[in-house]
């Protein structure tokens, strides 16, 4: 048993034309047993900055609180909002600080930068980042999600089409993974605001 696979998760971040989408499943399990079907893994740090945390649920919630604390401190001292790139670097530093006793999470950062250009990054549990222009995935169904995204993705999608693509990619991926699923939440972020939709998929 791998600790990163104890609770189960599936998260995708995808870029469109001047917009980003980030989606996650709703399941919280204790290995094979499902414990909750409304467990939040994607958090809004700001209007145009979202972070998705896949992995051990306890660390997901702890890291969310820690990120809120550190983001707050940044905004008080700098007197401006934190940008997605800087936030991603902050997250990476926080994870590496615990290099020899890490947080068991594999996060995904999705946002719009100051010029409203999409920003996506993903990292491993000790903070090694990777930056992508198209999509990033994390969780227990990464093989499925990578396959679906690679097939369905095309560049410069408008928000409505991005929503469709992101939703289909996620829903199809979690069906072949017993540890993730039970519906999904999808956020589409544009410069004018965010639209959040809940998907009802196979409830198993």
């Amino acid at each position: 048993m791998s600790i990163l696979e104890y609770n189960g998760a599936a998260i995708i971040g995808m870029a469109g034309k001047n917009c980003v989408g980030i989606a996650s499943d709703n399941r919280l399990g204790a290995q094979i047993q499902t414990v909750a079907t409304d467990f939040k893994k994607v958090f809004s740090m700001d209007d145009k900055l979202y972070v998705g945390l896949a992995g051990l649920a306890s660390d997901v919630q702890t890291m969310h609180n820690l990120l809120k604390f550190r983001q707050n401190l940044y905004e008080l001292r700098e007197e401006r909002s934190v940008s997605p790139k800087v936030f991603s670097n902050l997250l990476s530093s926080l994870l590496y600080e615990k290099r020899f006793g890490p947080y068991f999470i594999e996060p995904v950062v999705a946002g719009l930068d100051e010029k409203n250009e999409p920003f996506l990054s993903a990292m491993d549990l000790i903070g090694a980042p990777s930056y992508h222009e198209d999509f990033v995935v994390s969780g227990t169904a990464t093989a499925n999600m990578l396959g679906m995204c690679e097939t369905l993705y095309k560049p410069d999608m408008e928000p409505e089409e991005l929503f469709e693509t992101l939703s289909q990619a996620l829903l199809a991926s979690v069906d072949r993974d017993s540890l993730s699923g039970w519906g999904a939440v999808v956020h589409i972020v544009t410069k004018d605001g965010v639209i959040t939709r809940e998907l009802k998929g196979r409830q198993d």
Partner: protein
Amino acid sequence: MARRYDSSTTTFSPEGRLHQVEYAIEAINNAGTCVGILAKDGIVMASEKRVTSGLLAPAKTSEKTYKLSQHSACNVAGLTADANILIDQARLRAGRYEYQYCEPIPIEQLVEHVCNYKQAYTQYGGLRPFGVAFLFAGYDEHYGFQLYQSDPSGNYSGWKATVIGANNQAGKSLLKNEYGSQEEDTEEGKDGGEEMKTGDADKKLILPDVQEALRLAVKVLNKTMDATATSPDKMELFSMTLDTNGNCKHTILSSDETKEVMDSVDAETAAAGDM
């Protein structure tokens, strides 16, 4: 006589005084004035912006008002360098409390933490005290809006209205006469915050609203500053109120908004003069 007992912060004088702390308080009495006023729907803090040179680059946001957390802010009088350390301490404390309890820190606890930090410099280590006095303004769900004042000794107290910095005695005496109004006077006068009978300690005090408090704050600054030289660039007005969602809103008034308040105060004093 005090000379022998004033070079160490950690030694009492024979009269039972800590001279270093008193000297620190003197340093603050030369700094730009800050006035804080508790209103029924918020808090107002106004400060004198001292421009020591025309060549100085203008401050990006403020050099007097600092946000400590979503629900608290402070005004500074004294050594800015010392203040920066304490402000960072306060921000860390508020952040850590909220990280631990997932709840905003009660204001008095935040003030007490900063004050305990200051107190350590009057008892241990042989280091000098911080030359800063603060006005803390904050909101919590237990006690609503609160205003606190703290000084270099680490002592703090809650106030309905108070002044720190240069000419604070003149400011305080004006507030004593003009802050709040008595219960039976609520119907009279457009500005409920004008009359107060002294000595009737059991009469309930009516707090002014934020607009009245802003005008009163400007009046105080007019008195403590060189009255002929007051202008919107020399005054900074700050207010803290609750928005419709129950969250705190911190507002530093713009130059135009400040001018509006100052003009309304001038009109009031002129009208009062005519009577």
